[in-house]
């Protein structure tokens, strides 16, 4: 990159500004520093420091008589969450819910994204993008409570299903999966839609032209090309579900997920170090997921 030379006629706002401009124009490193100083400070503070604090807190403990935090380092908390069966059960349950939500979202998002990117007229496409984004304007809590009311006995779901001899699943893990799949769906549709749009129409035509049926074209051309975008979308639904504790409180009945355990330990149980240790579980799972996904190039699609 070459810095544009300062034209002599420019800089109407005085000699000082002009000197500063010409100083910067020839020093790309200084410019870069000024550009990134503020956001980098913010990132380091809120992100890296907070994460480090979490890790350190997980190594502390709580005095069971006084409730005071003991700042000597110990692996007790980590040992507890890896050996106690409660944590294993909840971790597996959370993982299962997150996977199920992700699978449902991807299955629903794929045809919608394909329709938006490749079939719909430009006008219909704009409307659909707005329709997909609109739910994001509503509060998370409102949406979760909407599902609570829909899934209640005699609620909307019952009203629709009863004529077919079925009834609402009630509050429980099924309700959690439904609610989470609904709430995170836009985050899955959008990257897949963007990925589909990047596949030129001529590739689909070329496949058909060479003798591939529509199904074959989707399998051999569309899917391999949008797989990174699908994985990018799945990162959202998977990680957001992994850390959720609100909707499970609202529609989950008595079930607990990792987020609930963190919440109870921060609040009622007053055990911040244990909460920090539990919070590390989804982080570790997510790092594993990201590492697996990174191999496919999906991170270039975020």
């Amino acid at each position, binding site marked *: 990159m070459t810095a544009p030379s300062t034209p002599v006629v420019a800089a109407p706002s005085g000699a000082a500004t002009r000197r500063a401009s010409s100083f910067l124009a020839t020093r790309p490193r200084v410019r870069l520093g000024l550009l990134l100083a503020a956001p980098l400070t913010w990132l380091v503070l809120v992100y890296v420091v907070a994460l480090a604090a979490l890790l350190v807190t997980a190594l502390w403990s709580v005095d069971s008589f006084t409730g005071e935090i003991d700042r000597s380092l110990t692996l007790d908390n980590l040992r507890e969450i890896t050996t106690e069966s409660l944590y294993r059960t909840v971790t597996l349950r959370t993982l299962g819910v997150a996977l199920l939500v992700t699978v449902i979202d991807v299955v629903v998002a794929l045809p919608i994204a394909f329709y938006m990117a490749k079939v719909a007229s430009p006008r219909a496409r704009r409307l659909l993008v707005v329709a997909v984004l609109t739910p994001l304007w509503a509060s998370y809590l409102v949406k979760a409570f909407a599902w609570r009311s829909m899934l209640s006995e005699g609620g909307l779901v019952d009203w629709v299903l009863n004529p077919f001899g079925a009834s609402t699943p009630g509050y429980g893990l099924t309700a959690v999966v439904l609610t989470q799949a609904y709430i995170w769906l836009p985050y899955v549709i959008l990257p897949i839609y963007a990925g589909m749009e990047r596949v030129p129409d001529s590739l689909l*035509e070329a*496949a*058909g032209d060479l003798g591939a049926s529509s199904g074959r074209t989707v399998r051999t051309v569309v899917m391999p090309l949008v797989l990174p975008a699908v994985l990018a979308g799945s990162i959202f639904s998977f990680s957001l579900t992994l850390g959720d504790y609100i909707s499970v409180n609202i529609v989950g009945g008595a079930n607990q997920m990792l987020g609930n355990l963190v919440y109870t330990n921060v609040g009622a149980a007053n055990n911040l170090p244990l909460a920090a240790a539990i919070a590390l579980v989804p982080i570790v799972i997510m790092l594993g997921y990201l590492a697996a996904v990174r191999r496919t190039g999906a991170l270039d699609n975020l």
Partner: protein
Amino acid sequence: MSQPGPTPAIRLVGLEKHFGDVRAVDGVDLEIADGEFFSMLGPSGSGKTTVLRLVAGFEQPTSGSVVLGGTDVTGTAPFERDVNTVFQDYALFPHMSVLENVAYGLRVRGVGKRDRTARAREALATVRLEHVADRRPAQLSGGQRQRIALARAIVVRPKVLLLDEPLGALDLKLREQMQVELKGLQRELGITFVFVTHDQEEALTLSDRIAVFHEGRIVQLGTPQEIYESPQDEYVASFVGTSNLFAPEESRAVLGRDGRFALRPEKISLSDGDVPPGALSARGVVAETIYLGTGRRVVVDLETGPRLVVLEPSTVPTAVERGDKVVVAWRPDDLVALS
């Protein structure tokens, strides 16, 4: 020059395609003979690409029919038609190697792996690119991608190959080289080529016959020579090559005849007074001379009003200059009456 035979490779009957209020193709009737190198020539928006897409099956006609080798294929999908397309952007699959790209058509037809690899390599050899078989399309140059797209289309041995401005993205040198290769390939394979282009020179050099498109219709159909030497109207005369056009009033003033006429710049000679016997002539003043390398383009303002462009070959030593008084002359036969 091949003429349409008894069973043409392609027959288009009353073909129309409307997009909303736009008549992209507005009544095209056409027969293309087996083994012909046929070009569809026209500016962008003239409907030539839409006709190609109708033949390939990417679009369905609003009315009319597409007949391939005697079978009406109107309403069938692209994968059911025995034609293949070379796309303007090549449309190579980025996630497959060159060999997998070329073998794709065989793979979806259920040809076994060993057989299709052999045939794909053979097709790559035809375009002299065996050595890039294991690369990805992104690692190839534009000219190489173009040839891979060709190999991918011919490997399934279609009866008709459709080429949508295939050389449009290449630089001049490469384009000229590919023109020679295309022509050779067509002769070697003996299949029908339907070539869409907006480049009149390309159409003239490559084709057996040319259809000139204008606003969704074919305005003239003929051999390159017919199109160039006897353009039917003003549109063809000015789109294919350059022409000096005489509007009715100019014809009366300069030629003393009624009607519209066209005169090619290279058919006009310049002199300072001597007119060859039997030639028509007019006096004028040189307004501009442009050096072209292969010759000179001389713009002459005639005393009777209109401005003529004259193309002087560089073998002619006389160098006229701006402001010189000259006599322009041409043979009466070279005047083309336009409709």
